[in-house]
């Protein structure tokens, strides 16, 4: 059974069609990369998956729950991280994590926070104000927040943005391990193509709100005759089809 099923999803703002008849599914325990340039519809799609935004048409099912009618049942088993949505900066990292532990009904809060702090190297930061942290530290805290409830579905928007290569690699390794151990399903929006190749079993390419290609990273590399996804991304962004890319 798929963890996420998106069928004919569209979102219109007045004259603008931000997402246009998008359909895809994500198998349980797999990682889907949602790729596309700025304005491709990634954020809008994620916002609809999270119930922040009501679709103009189409449907979303997460963990078997229809998001239009039973979104809270799904949201309790989901979580989200984005460097573009802040955590309160005037309270400590520990207090932030406590707040979200309460919101997600996490048991043994102190133990869970200590566990996440140890694994994401946050122990020394727990009693510092969230606003005093560096961008990389904030991203790690946001990731800890997104894992506080041991989610079955994790939506990550640029999870390693602002991280140095070493910490970025640590986070990627940690996500791989977490997925392997928990069977968590991950939907990842990223501009880091190396990250997508490493973490994603499937990739959806969006452009102007529509899916323009879809497949495993290897499928896309073969189809476009490229060595890495960065070139495939450029081919799609610049309007070259897989056939043109071959010639």
């Amino acid at each position, binding site marked *: 059974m798929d963890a996420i099923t998106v069928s004919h999803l569209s979102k219109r*703002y007045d004259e603008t069609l931000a997402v246009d008849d998008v359909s895809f599914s994500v198998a349980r325990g797999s990682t889907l990369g949602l790729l596309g340039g700025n304005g491709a519809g990634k*954020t*809008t799609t994620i*916002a609809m998956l*999270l*119930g*922040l*935004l*009501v679709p103009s048409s189409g449907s979303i099912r997460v963990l078997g729950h229809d998001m239009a009618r039973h979104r*809270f049942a799904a*949201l*309790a088993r*989901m*979580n*989200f991280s*984005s460097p573009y*949505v*802040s*955590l*309160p*900066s*005037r*309270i*400590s990292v520990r*207090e*932030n994590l*406590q*707040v*979200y*532990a*309460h*919101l*997600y*009904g996490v048991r043994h809060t102190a133990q869970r926070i200590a566990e996440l702090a140890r694994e994401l190297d946050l122990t020394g930061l727990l009693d510092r*104000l969230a606003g005093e942290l560096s961008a990389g530290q904030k991203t790690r805290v946001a990731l800890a*927040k997104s894992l506080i409830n041991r989610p079955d579905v994790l939506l990550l928007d640029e999870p390693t943005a602002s991280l140095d290569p070493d910490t970025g690699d640590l986070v990627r390794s940690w996500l791989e391990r977490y997925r392997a151990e928990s069977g968590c399903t991950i939907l990842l929006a990223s501009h880091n193509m190396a990250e997508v190749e490493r973490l994603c079993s499937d990739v959806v390419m969006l452009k102007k709100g529509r899916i323009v290609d879809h497949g495993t990273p290897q499928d896309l590399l073969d189809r476009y005759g490229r060595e890495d996804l960065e070139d495939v991304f450029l081919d799609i962004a610049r309007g070259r089809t897989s056939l043109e890319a071959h010639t």
Partner: protein
Amino acid sequence: MSLSLRRIWGLMFRHIALYRRSWPRLVELAYWPILQMSIWGFTANFLMQRGGSNAAMIGGAVMGGVLLWEVALRSQMGMSISFLEEIWSRNLGHVFVSPLRPWELVAALIGMSMLRMLAGVIPAIALAWVLYAFNLLSTGPVLVLFFANLMVMGWAVALGVISLILRHGAGAEALAWSVLFGITPFSAVFYPVSVLPHVAREIAFLVPASHVFEGMRAVMLDGHIAWDELALAMVLNLVWLAAAILIFRRQFQVARIRGALISIGE
């Protein structure tokens, strides 16, 4: 603790943690009620010195009005500003993708509003007692009903303000500070409704606070509890609150359709 209560407490804990670390925020809670109490306390003292026993009673009623109006004002501001704190910290995206239901958000905001109101009004009541020998508590148990009605009116107005913020974004945030001042002339805080012009009296009839303050004056000046006024205040509050809840629910849904929950801080 049920999951629902935990979520409500979670959001309240976020605000309590914020206040624990911020003395300017704590000072702000009590600053205005104490300032108001001081100014009106001196005014009432002046009236008492110059006008004899009747003026003394009126001065007392004015001080009671000042303190009780702060209950409505602090309740409304406490709820609206707690919501604005989420916008200012750009945290709403995380809050609304958690399992927190909209009514639980409202319950947490009401909880914070009560805490903020008590932190502001209790020092002012104590100050009135110490400096001016005015004991609001001598009004008796009916004071609880005055407080409750004014708090509910404050929450209804705050829900209206939050709905406007959901509809128009942070541009509507100035209303969090100013909106209740616009109702003050019709709330009969310092004078009876009878002194208002006819049209204003019609408006005042629809404002729950005007009945609370008529009731307060009945206790302080005439020594009896005006149950009819209190009943009217309660009925009007139920109507105001029901209308505010409907407007909030509608605006929350519209915000989800328009994508305002993503860009509300802008």
